[in-house]
């Protein structure tokens, strides 16, 4: 099975989601001066959304810096986006932006730290996703 990479700011929503998911995951540091980590195997990115009303700034800067590294893009298999439906049309927009930039699917969207239903669906979904992917010859 592939891995997980995530970003979470001081609000801690995505970090709490990852903790409840109970799968090993690599965290992208929030600090501007921290060098982005390198993903060493295929992974799914879990990313919150920070868009303004027009959709600008949807993807957090540390995530952009992480994806600017070609090696990290090459191993990205899909994105799970977090957000808040109260932001209307820009709900979980970071997922769409990353999907468009990196040509990967948006696998799932959830709000804030996710519900128990979200956690169960994503656990099952991740297992199936990587099992299916392993059958496809490289």
């Amino acid at each position, binding site marked *: 099975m592939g891995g997980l990479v995530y970003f979470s*700011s*001081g*609000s*801690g*929503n995505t970090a*709490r989601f990852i903790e409840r998911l109970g799968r090993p995951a690599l965290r992208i540091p929030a600090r501007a001066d921290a060098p982005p980590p390198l993903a060493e195997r295929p992974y799914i990115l879990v990313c919150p959304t*920070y*868009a*303004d*009303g*027009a*959709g*600008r*700034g*949807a*993807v957090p*800067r540390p995530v*952009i*810096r992480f*994806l*600017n590294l*070609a090696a990290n*893009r090459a191993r990205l298999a*899909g994105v799970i986006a977090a957000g*808040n*439906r*109260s*932001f*209307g*049309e*820009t*709900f*979980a*927009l*970071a*997922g*769409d*932006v990353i*999907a*468009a*930039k990196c*040509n990967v*699917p*948006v*696998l*799932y*969207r959830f*709000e*804030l*730290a996710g*519900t*128990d*239903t979200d956690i169960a*669906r*994503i656990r*099952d*979904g*991740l297992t*199936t*996703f990587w099992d299916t992917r392993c059958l496809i010859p490289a």
Partner: protein
Amino acid sequence: MKDLPDPRKDLSGPRPVPAAINWNRLQDDKDLEIWNRLTANFWLPEKVPLSNDIQSWSQLSEEERTLTIRVFTGLTLLDTIQNSVGAPALMPDAITPHEEAVLSNIAFMEAVHARSYSSVFSTLCRTAEVDEAFRWSAENEHLQAKSRLILDEYDTAASPLRRKIASVFLESFLFYSGFYLPMHWSSRARLTNTADLIRLIIRDEAIHGYYIGYKFQRGLERLSGPERQEMKDFAFSLAFDLYDIEARYTEQLYDRLGLTEDVKAFLHYNANKALRNLGFEALFPDEACKVNPAIMAALSPGSDENHDFFSGSGSSYVIGRTVATEDDDWDF
């Protein structure tokens, strides 16, 4: 309680001259992030063509119109409280000067929200029916009871963190018994311009609840384990008390339209989100939060409500909302 000192307690000497605010020296990056989002999202009700709803308004029954005006006066009351008491009460608790500046933006936008309901009224309603609804809200026991509970916390000078809890519940929970109705009308293609205005308010309140909840979490980290537990117990206890009032308010407003159970699911869903903003776990189980999909679609139109690639219900490549792909910093 080892909360931070309250500057309001020291009223003996002359007010010290504050340090001039320097936005190029941040103690907390979140302050600038939220300032930028709030100012980029600034709006005024004049931007929304409310007069396009005049025909739709005339097609509502008298009972539906009365309900709508009453709901909007209830929302006006909450915005008034947050503008004149809530956000200002948080300002002396601010840890950074930038937090205080963000709170002044929040306070002003609450005034814009309160003002925008009056724009709806002057566009769609007769003066007499609006005056009647304001009287109704001033006398409504449930509206007054929830305002009382919140105001009591704002006035508790000893606890900055309790003030933040009350504020997050107001911003992220108490508005939603009212927000439900314009989302309901919108899902039936009624009052769609008014719904656009309400969505702008919802967007603002979501940022307010998020930011104040974030500051609450920073404050909570400074407490000891038992103090943190005490604060969490207080938050859940206040959530229960407010929910009791909201449930009765909801029955009073929505029973006759047969919408009460639908609204309650929406309340459960939003109460959980308010607790999430504070960094706590959900109170209501998922089964109690199954909001009518038409309401969810009205809340975030065009965002593909049930998108789930894993279960095969969504499209595999969602591309189209591309405005944000042109942000700076992308290097490919």
